[in-house]
């Protein structure tokens, strides 16, 4: 609501956090993300088990106090494997979004700011990227690059370029028409000065919200590629790969449900935060 901004001003003195007035679901999402980030930075702090070493006698145990998510077919602790696989899943998603933001952002920026022929040419390029189903595009690129986790991340990133280009272009065009941009030009500002000082900062909010959303989507796409076997082979333990391994042991369903639960929780949190970023303009 637009009233929020009116309420926020007098409250600033009372502390920034209360001024932000985080909805409870956003606090929960941030907490989940904090756990995921901690898992990927220092997995050793969260589990004493070695993710690669199994005890054959302890294979396919159900979830218990000793093994939170049970053990897999080689007697490895599933919780440890998820925690240690987090870094790979999170890093790949970040690589993918980084490629999307940089390449897509640049395309959108040039198309929106320069307009004319450049805009038309880049718009057709974006149409082409949009016309190929995203997942199929990622498979083609990863096939051409070779099968490993970094390449699945690159392929996912390229398949996200079009979305970023479109949002960036729309934001740039919206800002270009604003009076203050006109004023900046009239004051003698150069194109690149106006672009850097006025257009980019104004577009960054929408692009940030999109980027957060795309981290979640990229986690899903990369998990899908890992599920089909285009990522690193075991003993890597990306979330998608864990689910793929679990599918052969459906009689012990926690092998699928535990990594799936972690994936869904992470993606859901990212979606919620992205929504919140868009709403608090």
């Amino acid at each position: 609501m637009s009233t929020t901004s009116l309420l926020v001003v007098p409250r600033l003195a009372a502390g920034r956090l209360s001024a932000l007035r985080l909805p409870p679901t956003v606090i929960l999402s941030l907490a989940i993300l904090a756990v995921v980030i901690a898992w990927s930075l220092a997995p050793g702090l969260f589990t004493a088990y070695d993710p690669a070493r199994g005890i054959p006698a302890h294979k396919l145990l159900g979830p218990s106090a000793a093994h939170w998510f049970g053990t897999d077919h080689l007697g490895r602790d599933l919780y440890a494997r998820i925690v240690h696989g987090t870094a790979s899943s999170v890093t790949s998603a970040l690589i993918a979004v980084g490629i999307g933001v940089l390449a897509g952002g640049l395309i959108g920026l040039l198309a929106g700011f320069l307009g004319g022929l450049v805009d038309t040419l880049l718009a057709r390029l974006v149409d082409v990227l949009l016309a190929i189903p995203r997942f199929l595009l990622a498979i083609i690129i990863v096939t051409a690059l070779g099968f490993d986790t970094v390449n699945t991340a690159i392929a996912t990133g390229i398949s996200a370029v079009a979305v970023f280009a479109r949002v960036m272009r729309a934001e740039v065009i919206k800002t270009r028409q604003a009076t203050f941009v006109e004023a900046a030009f009239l004051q003698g500002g150069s194109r690149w000065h106006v672009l850097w000082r006025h257009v980019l900062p104004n577009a960054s909010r929408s692009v940030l919200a999109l980027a957060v959303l795309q981290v979640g989507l990229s986690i899903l796409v990369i998990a899908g590629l890992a599920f089909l076997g285009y990522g690193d082979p075991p003993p890597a333990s990306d979330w998608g790969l864990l689910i793929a391994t679990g599918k052969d042991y459906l009689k012990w369903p926690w092998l699928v449900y535990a990594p799936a639960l972690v994936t869904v929780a992470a993606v859901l949190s990212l979606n919620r935060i992205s929504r919140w970023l868009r709403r608090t303009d």
Partner: protein
Amino acid sequence: MRHPYLIYAGKRLAQAVAVILLTYLFTFVVVSILPGDPVTNVLRDPQNGFSEEQIQAIIAAQGLDRPLLIQLWTSLTHFLSGDFGLSMRSSRPVATLIAEALPSTLTLASAGLAVALGLAFAVAYGTQFLPGRIGSALRAFPSLFLSVPNFVIGLALIHVFGFQLGLFRVIEPDSAWATLSAAIALGIPISAQIAEVLIANLDHEARQDYAAVARSRGLSPARLFGKHLLKPSSLPVVTVIALTVGELLGGSLVTEAVFGRNGIGSLVQRSAAAQDLPVLQAVVALAALVFVLVNLAADLVYPLLDPRLKLVGNPERRPETADEATPSSLRTVAG
């Protein structure tokens, strides 16, 4: 009205043709320029046991020894005349391979779309009709559906219906129950996008003046919904459905792998594993062709369905995400 529509249709048609040709060029560039080389990776792989003469024969048959531009020209002209070349892996015509795989994927994709539509309309109309708590709880559904990968839904369905309830056997992927489960797995994430647009439209229409007038004159919510809100908020879904075509195909690649179906998905997987580029290129080009044609059809039909849309000057781009489809006025109010 008639004249601007023809101009619009002409522009849109030209654009579609350009995108299809460019897509072909794009896939050609991706598969020829990127570092992976199928000849060295697959043909010369000692495990595959091709003799030197066989390798030379395949290279000559595929025209891989000619300059890139000539390769592009021959493959493009052949593609336009419906000749997709030979598979490198099996030496069978690509067109035959695709024709064999297509029916299974089409069945799955159309069943998945039906599930997605049914679910999206049920959720969206539920948010309007169901009382307080339940109605607003339904609003969280699209976000939830969007966060669950379809292979997880598929595995959960196999676990519950296949293993626990014994409704179908995993070794019979084409049985009715297995197909229905695959369609549900494919449809749920796609329903989320349709439902998001639908909910946003319904909210928008319900806030319009005409709805307030109707309410103040004592129209029951059900009548208001059925007579006034239903049509204007459901029409834009036509274009959203067209946009989900790509995801139906992309999603069925994974769903087919989960359920062990033999379709385009398994064809793509086998071809990707063997770097069988002619097959991959044909599948991508066909997918893009279908996507462009479906969206062209949606764009051409939509102005006829919705007379409020006036085509003056440049044709407006259609909304392409749930966020864009939300009218901008609504977004500022909600923000």
